[in-house]
């Protein structure tokens, strides 16, 4: 209740009035060399972008408040425990990111390498899952028999915790790196299969009727109707899969070792370097966020209505 009021009263009304003031200020110094034009230029600028700037601030200010609150709580916790505070962590992060790509040996490499190695594993595991999972989803969605055949298997295997697959990977591949990729593969394939199949099944009957009255070939039905109609579902599946893959990689690498962000966390724990662990948490969060945002952008390009 109070939060809603706060939002409407403080931000909703105060900002549109305040925002133009921000816009008017910057052109002012230019007024020195030419008196009239800046004035003429100013007004349209405010009119043109005033709303957008107001909207930006309306969106940005709560975010700033949120982050500030987070930092405050973190500082308080740090003050009463051994946890490093935001400032200390920030300085440590500056140190780490000033040289992200150093190599001092197999187990001591820059944060950049660790991130790239993890992304590489995710890329391979997820990529293979997409190559197999998406066509499989299409088949399952299109053919009732296949759906009946695969449903029990999928229902059985899907809830299995990702790391439970690690021993199987280690057993089969006899190496840590392929085993980690295998875990990514097997845990990220399910959302793609399931969402693609649902997408194909949810293709509006109207579109399929068009295909029927025109007697379109199965290939045309696929390329012109099934694929575009289910693409938003497929992209949702991909987005969920990437999320799962990125969640799992940290845990998998903690167990398998090697170079990677998950192993790095474990290594820093062994060194009792808590700042680095916190930095790693941020890095994992930010990379995950970026992956998600990239796919959201991609998905938005395929919205038709």
């Amino acid at each position, binding site marked *: 209740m109070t939060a809603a009021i706060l939002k409407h009263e403080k931000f909703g009304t105060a900002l549109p009035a305040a925002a133009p003031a921000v816009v008017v200020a910057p052109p002012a110094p230019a007024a020195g060399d030419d008196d009239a034009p800046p004035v003429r230029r100013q007004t349209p600028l405010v009119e043109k972008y005033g709303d957008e700037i107001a909207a930006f601030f309306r969106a940005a200010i709560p975010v700033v408040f949120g982050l500030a609150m987070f930092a405050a709580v973190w500082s308080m916790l740090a003050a009463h425990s051994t946890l490093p505070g935001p400032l200390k962590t920030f300085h440590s992060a500056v140190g780490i990111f000033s040289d992200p790509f150093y190599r001092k040996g197999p187990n001591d490499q820059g944060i950049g390498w660790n991130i790239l190695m993890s992304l590489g594993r995710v890329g391979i595991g997820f990529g293979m899952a997409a190559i197999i999972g998406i066509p499989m989803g299409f088949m399952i969605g299109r053919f009732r028999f296949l759906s009946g055949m695969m449903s029990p298997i999928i229902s059985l295997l899907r809830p299995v915790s990702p790391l439970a697959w690690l021993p199987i990977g280690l057993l089969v591949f006899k190496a840590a790196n392929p085993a980690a990729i295998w875990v990514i593969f097997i845990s990220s394939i399910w959302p793609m299969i399931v969402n693609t199949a649902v997408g194909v099944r949810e293709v509006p009957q*109207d579109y399929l*009727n068009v295909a*029927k*009255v*025109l*007697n*379109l070939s199965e290939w045309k039905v696929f390329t*012109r109707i099934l694929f575009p*109609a289910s693409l938003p579902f497929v992209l949702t599946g991909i987005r969920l899969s990437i999320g799962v893959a990125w969640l799992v990689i940290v845990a998998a690498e903690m167990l398998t070792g090697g170079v990677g962000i998950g192993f790095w966390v474990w290594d820093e724990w062994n060194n009792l370097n808590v700042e680095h662990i916190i930095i790693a948490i941020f890095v994992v969060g930010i990379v995950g966020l970026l992956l998600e945002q990239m796919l959201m952008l991609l998905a938005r390009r395929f919205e*038709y209505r």
Partner: protein
Amino acid sequence: MEKFVLVENIDMTFKTPRGSFVALKDINLSIGEGEFVTLIGHSGCGKSTLLNLVAGLLVQTAGVLICAGREIAGPGPDRGVVFQNHSLLPWLTCAENIYLAVERVFGATESKAQLKARTLKALDLVQLGHAADKRPNEISGGMKQRVGIARALSIEPKVLLLDEPFGALDALTRAHLQDELLKIVAKTKSTVLMVTHDVDEAVLLSDRIVMMTNGPAATIGDIVNVDLPRPRDRLALVNDSRYHHLRGRVLEFLYQKQMRPAA
């Protein structure tokens, strides 16, 4: 007039989770070549079901369906269908939507340029040449419906099947499209079977109005011959006593003989 579309002793029973549902019972109808027939009846009586049977989208439980001397076995390009909700594919432009149909029917025998020319000709027929490269969501409801009609006509079907094509449009747009449909059909001399629930639309457009009884087990209650001369002009008809007489007959059927119990 030659019997071009034949519907003989058609029964249609749907299997539903709650048992079987007899939608149509003993339907007999013949449509001559170049004839414009409308199906009218209360909502849910089975108009779409009958149209979909002729389209080949449904399979009858009993009886025979014939189009141009051949038994109807599934959908085919000899019948062009216009759906109630246009059913354009939203990821294709208007031209691409039509091209998909044209390519399917003439792709084997004609060059790409010829197919493109057919596409544009179909769009011009509904006066939408300028909207060729627009997506369906960028044009109005009336325009979408016109593209739907252009798509159905582009394959040069022997029979045009329309299921309440103007049902979702406002009155003015609907009147405009009815006039346009009259002109197009006069030009292409198409055989048309059209579903409507609009009495004025039925009288204005049809040669015959097929009036259906209420379901379940709906059948043809009566048929009205519309002997108004063509070309018809909606303004002139307002003062035409024959028009009002025909209109009265349809209304009488719908609201006295087939009065719908308050739903």
